[in-house]
């Protein structure tokens, strides 16, 4: 039999003994109103919970506080007295944070695919864009809370370090500078998130992020040194370079923000848009 014609035509209302006493074939069992849609806040709550409910997730979260503390201790132990300033602590904490936060964002997306829990997640919430939105919102929340934690740890380290070294405490990070650091970390995390929805595989997305964050700057830096035109164009097209600038200060004019926007469109928005399109259309295996 090779055609798809049916061997036996089913009778729509074939009598079936006792089952017929409890069910009316062809009619829905309940006439209750349709259930309420799932609110976004509920999805966000679920995604927040997923960040903490595995050992790897929990340790990543703990590592945020841990690296802040370890970096502060390192500054106190090794920095010369003249370098016991808030800026030293902010820089020491900021670097590992720029690694850990993107990994948290990446794992929140890719674990659904690598661990295949997405089969359940996307069956319960077929509007996959809402799940991705909830993950993005929670990643942003984690980033901001982490930066506050890091700021507090850094401030305590600065107070403690100054007391130990017997020097005056130096608060040489302005609100604008701190905002720049937060923005830089959030944008770095966003790049990780974008690569995660584009690649949908944990090692792949982590490697892609490290290439972007650690390997690419060497290449672009070399190119900028050799080619004058690229040195001029670099802030407009090299997002990592532009974002790294935020650690020093916020852009002080329209051009700086425009550079952030154009380079961000290339390295963040484009992969995010392609990734989102793929998440919505691809098979969840």
């Amino acid at each position, binding site marked *: 039999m090779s055609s*798809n014609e049916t*061997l036996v035509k*089913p009778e729509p209302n074939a009598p079936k003994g006792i089952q017929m006493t409890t069910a009316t074939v062809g009619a829905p069992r309940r006439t209750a109103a349709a*259930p309420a849609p*799932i609110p976004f806040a509920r999805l966000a709550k679920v995604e927040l919970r997923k960040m903490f409910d595995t050992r790897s997730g929990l340790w990543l979260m703990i590592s945020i506080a841990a690296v802040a503390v370890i970096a502060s201790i390192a500054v106190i132990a090794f920095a010369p007295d003249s370098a016991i300033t808030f800026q030293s602590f902010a820089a020491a904490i900021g670097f590992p944070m720029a690694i850990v936060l993107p990994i948290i964002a990446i794992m929140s997306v890719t*674990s659904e695919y690598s661990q295949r829990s997405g*089969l*359940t997640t996307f069956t319960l919430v077929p509007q996959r864009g809402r799940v991705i939105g909830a993950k993005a919102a929670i990643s942003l929340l984690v980033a901001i809370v982490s930066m506050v934690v890091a700021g507090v740890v850094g401030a305590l380290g600065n107070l403690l370090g100054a007391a130990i070294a017997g020097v005056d405490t130096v608060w040489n990070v302005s609100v604008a500078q701190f905002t720049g650091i937060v923005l830089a970390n959030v944008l770095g995390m966003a790049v990780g998130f974008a690569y995660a929805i584009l690649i949908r595989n944990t090692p792949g997305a982590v490697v892609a992020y490290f290439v972007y964050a650690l390997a690419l700057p060497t290449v672009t830096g070399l190119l900028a040194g050799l080619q004058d035109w690229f040195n001029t164009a670099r802030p407009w097209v090299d997002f990592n370079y532009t974002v790294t600038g935020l650690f020093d200060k916020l852009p002080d004019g329209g051009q700086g923000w425009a550079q952030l926007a154009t380079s961000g469109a290339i390295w963040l928005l484009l992969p995010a848009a392609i990734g989102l399109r793929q998440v919505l259309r691809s098979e969840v295996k």
Partner: protein
Amino acid sequence: MITVSDVSKSYGRGKGGRALLAVDHVSFTARPGRVTGFLGPNGAGKSTTLRVVAGLTPADAGSATVLGEPIAALPNPGVQVGVLLDASAQHAGRTGRETLILSQLTMGLPRARVAEMLELVSLTADEADRRVRNYSLGMRQRLGIATALMGEPEVLILDEPANGLDPAGIRWMRDLLRDYANRGNTVLLSSHLLHEIEVVADDLVVIGNGRIVADGTKEQLLSSAGTFAAAADLDALQGALQAAGVGVSGGTGGLTVDAEADQVGRIALAAGIPLRELRPAGSAGLEEMFLQLTADTQREGVAA
């Protein structure tokens, strides 16, 4: 109610290679109050079809609806459709209980449902607090069933739910599905094992090579599976039946005849052969039919 209408899905397009047509214009309906068995050999397209219904795989053509809507249009699918496609697709690092809590939260159900479900699927509190990576396939299957049933959906879609269950577990699953359908719900379950499906299903949909090859109630398919006839002189009986132009195949201690019992009786009477046994071939015949229907796709290449 699940309606699959003319669904097609192929893989591997591009690069000049021939596309593999995994599902080829598949249509069938799973009705409320009944267990519909979705039967086919490995690679016949069962899982792909169920994934299309669950909204995880986009169909190239055709549509699938659950309760009259594509699953993506349901406001809170979990409380309307319970789905278990692959019991091993669960986060290995979460505990079983946590896995259920996430589903409970997503669906907006009371927390008490988690404990109720654990009890229903016979996972102890101790087991529930273990990480899923330490679960056997049978335990994962139970956890998956718990997730699917948690929202008290009126439609259940299960892909090979008996995999990894021990005999007692299979019996438990069968009773649970029977009971679930008896309460007016729609149950669609797939299997590559005829016997597993036969004992629980009311309706059967048989798929081979991506196409529906048989579709009907179990009784209809059983009665269409021919007649079993036995006589002291089997050769004479076979000769008489063949002379009458009826399809005959040999079996253990008798013949499977492609005709109604009445006709077989008349042929035997006319030939003066006393019959020892005459009855619908039933499940043995259904198995024979299943193997023949799917012979094209059987990896073992069963001779039809």
